[in-house]
């Protein structure tokens, strides 16, 4: 049982492209350089600088159940762009073929031809290669619907009013240490705006990938769903194999106005480090959605199998009356991975509802924690929350922890919390084997069964991918 923990990282390859990289270190001039490089308006430069000022005085968060040596933020390079990108490609043909090849290895449906030929289902992709968004597909079709889907750098120029209005409105610059850092140095990311009453005609997708050595990646994503609109957004993340730990501190902000719905799905398999715990991504991410409008809804679904350390709490602030927040999560850790992940549901509006379903799977010598906050403010008359938090242990050297926080300031609120911990037992494996199913398949089947409630929230092709990803991540976890 203990010897099935040796997953080969399939996305482990690096792309040999000339890059333009800033030397390591962070000060005001670096912030100004990044902003200037992107030709940003003055308000944004100032906005970055004020974030940088705040960040300097902030302590690193110490409360998470994760352990790692202190990060030297001066040893990180804060800007890296593929050089062939400097002029900016206008079509896929102009994109460096090596980059396209990289995406191909990852199975990203980047080629419009393939999609149009019906080889793949229509998905619009905004790909972030290190720090610059290199190619965006399906812009025209989306434009017909009035949907804006572009890199955030582009949005700063093309839709400054929207960006200025919503940027930092959900995750303020000084929200936390990593969010402040991101606000100061964010490189690129996606921007989405769905106009009033529009149902986005296709699923939107971003694939993030960390490539250059010692470059932190600081994406910034902003999604605004105007009244009565709907969007489903998919985010997939991989990073090539690296010896050094790499910092990834993204910020994602979602805004849903009256009757709007945002469904945000993530499959994250950043490089987790090798089987001895060497290398891997530090994934310190701030994700938050604001249900500003009445009857609005935000759903987070995440499948987290990668990263050496995951620190991530996709949250929903339920301000609109009758608004709904959901969080469905599968977090799998193997070898020496550490995950401290969960959510915050802040109920402010009347009759607001939230659902939390968290499935943690720990194998190898990993540590897996669920941390969740459910808060109802005095104004949250009739608020309801249901939380279900299950842990599954594989082997006997891993850890599963649950840290639920409940703060109810409204006596009419109903908050339910259920938790369970179970183990993939030798008896279960033996039963499967006796029926002809080998140990690896058996573990994968048992883990998939355990995650079923979350997988069914994922869009179809993501659900299949997620199942496969679990299988790969668990390779070598039993034997």
């Amino acid at each position, binding site marked *: 049982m203990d010897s099935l923990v040796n997953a080969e990282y399939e996305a482990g390859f690096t792309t040999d492209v000339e890059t333009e990289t800033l030397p390591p270190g962070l000060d005001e001039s670096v912030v100004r350089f990044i902003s200037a490089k992107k030709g940003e308006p003055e308000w944004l430069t100032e906005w970055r600088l004020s974030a940088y000022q705040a960040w300097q005085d902030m302590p690193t968060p110490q409360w998470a159940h994760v352990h790692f040596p202190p990060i030297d933020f001066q040893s990180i390079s804060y800007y890296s762009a593929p050089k062939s990108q400097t002029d900016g490609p206008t079509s896929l043909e102009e994109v460096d073929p090596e980059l396209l090849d990289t995406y191909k290895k990852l199975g990203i449906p980047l080629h419009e031809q393939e999609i149009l030929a019906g080889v793949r289902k229509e998905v619009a992709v905004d790909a972030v290669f290190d720090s610059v968004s290199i190619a965006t597909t399906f812009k025209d079709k989306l434009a017909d619907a009035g949907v804006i889907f572009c890199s955030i750098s582009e949005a700063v120029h093309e839709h400054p009013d929207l960006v200025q209005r919503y940027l930092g409105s959900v995750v303020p610059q000084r929200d936390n240490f990593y969010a402040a850092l991101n606000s100061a140095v964010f490189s690129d990311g996606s921007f989405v705006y769905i106009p009033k009453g529009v149902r986005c005609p296709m699923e939107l997708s971003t694939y993030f990938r960390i490539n250059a050595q010692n470059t932190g990646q600081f994406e910034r994503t902003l999604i605004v769903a105007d009244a009565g609109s709907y969007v489903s957004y998919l985010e997939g993340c991989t990073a090539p194999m690296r010896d050094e730990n790499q910092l990834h501190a993204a910020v994602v902000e979602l805004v849903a106005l009256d009757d709007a719905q945002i469904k945000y799905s993530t499959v994250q398999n950043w490089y987790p480090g090798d089987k001895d715990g060497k290398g891997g991504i530090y994934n310190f991410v701030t994700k938050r959605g604001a249900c500003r409008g009445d009857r609005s809804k935000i759903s987070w679904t995440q499948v987290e199998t990668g990263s050496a350390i995951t620190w991530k709490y996709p949250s929903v602030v339920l301000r609109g009356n009758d608004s709904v927040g959901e969080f469905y999560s599968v977090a799998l850790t193997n070898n020496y991975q550490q995950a401290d992940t969960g959510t915050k549901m802040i109920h402010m509006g009347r009759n607001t509802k939230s659902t939390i379903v968290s499935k943690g799977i720990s194998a190898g010598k990993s540590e897996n924690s669920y941390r969740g906050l459910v808060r109802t403010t005095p104004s949250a008359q009739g608020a309801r929350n249901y939380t279900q938090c299950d842990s599954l242990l594989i082997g006997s050297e891993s850890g599963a922890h649950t840290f639920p926080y409940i703060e109810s300031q409204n006596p009419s609120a109903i908050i339910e919390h259920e938790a369970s911990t179970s183990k993939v037992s030798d*008896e279960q494996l033996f039963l499967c*084997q006796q*029926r002809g199913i080998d140990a690896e398949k058996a573990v994968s089947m*048992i883990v998939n*069964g355990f995650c079923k409630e979350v997988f069914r929230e994922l869009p179809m092709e993501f659900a299949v991918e997620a199942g496969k990803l679990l299988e790969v991540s668990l390779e070598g976890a039993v034997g």
Partner: protein
Amino acid sequence: MSLLQIEELVVEVAGQRILNGLNLALDTGEVHAIMGPNGSGKSTLANVMAGRPGYEVVEGRIEFDGVELADLEPDTRAHAGLFLAFQYPVEIPGVSNMEFLKASLDNLHAARELEAVSTVEFMKSVRAIAEELDLNPEFLKRGVNEGFSGGEKKRNEILQLLLLQPRLAVLDETDSGLDIDALQVVAKGVNRFSGPDNGVLLITHYQRLLDHIVPDVVHVLAEGRIVRSGDKDLALDLEAKGYSWVVA
């Protein structure tokens, strides 16, 4: 050549000797019963044949269809046609019975180089067997053995036996904890399975199962070895006189 040939088998569990020079031969078309007092090593025999971790063969051989089993993984033994009906079937929450049975059948067919069974065919045969065993077809949607009563779990084992069609069925005290109706259903299933091309090894503590499944040979297992073999009347004698009569 026998379907099953066990010679001078010595087995230890956690350093303790449980089987001590056991011999047994079973041919296709035969039903054998193994009876014996508690702690005589009956379940150990079943588990060591199936390759359960923790059951160590110290000496002797287990040959199945001419192949030595000792070094084979449990799933490889299953592929070869060895089936164990568990005394205490374990639950696998979240994995539906249907998914589990289909995975099992697919893997066995692949390993035996048989044609894959379509989902439609599969559903048809499972439903037919379930009906025969008085199992509500709804059970297919539930988790493997999840929330099953003791009787349901045992009938589910027999369902798997009939679906998977192994060459040798080892039933480890499948009769224990069953009421008389369930016992008859189980016996009916085993009798339907039993044929000229396969073998059945019934491990039981009580004679009552043998009223419904008539064995060709009855063995008495005591202190880790077969101390007496005979025809079905041996079981009746044991019922009447107790084990001390043969063991002493």
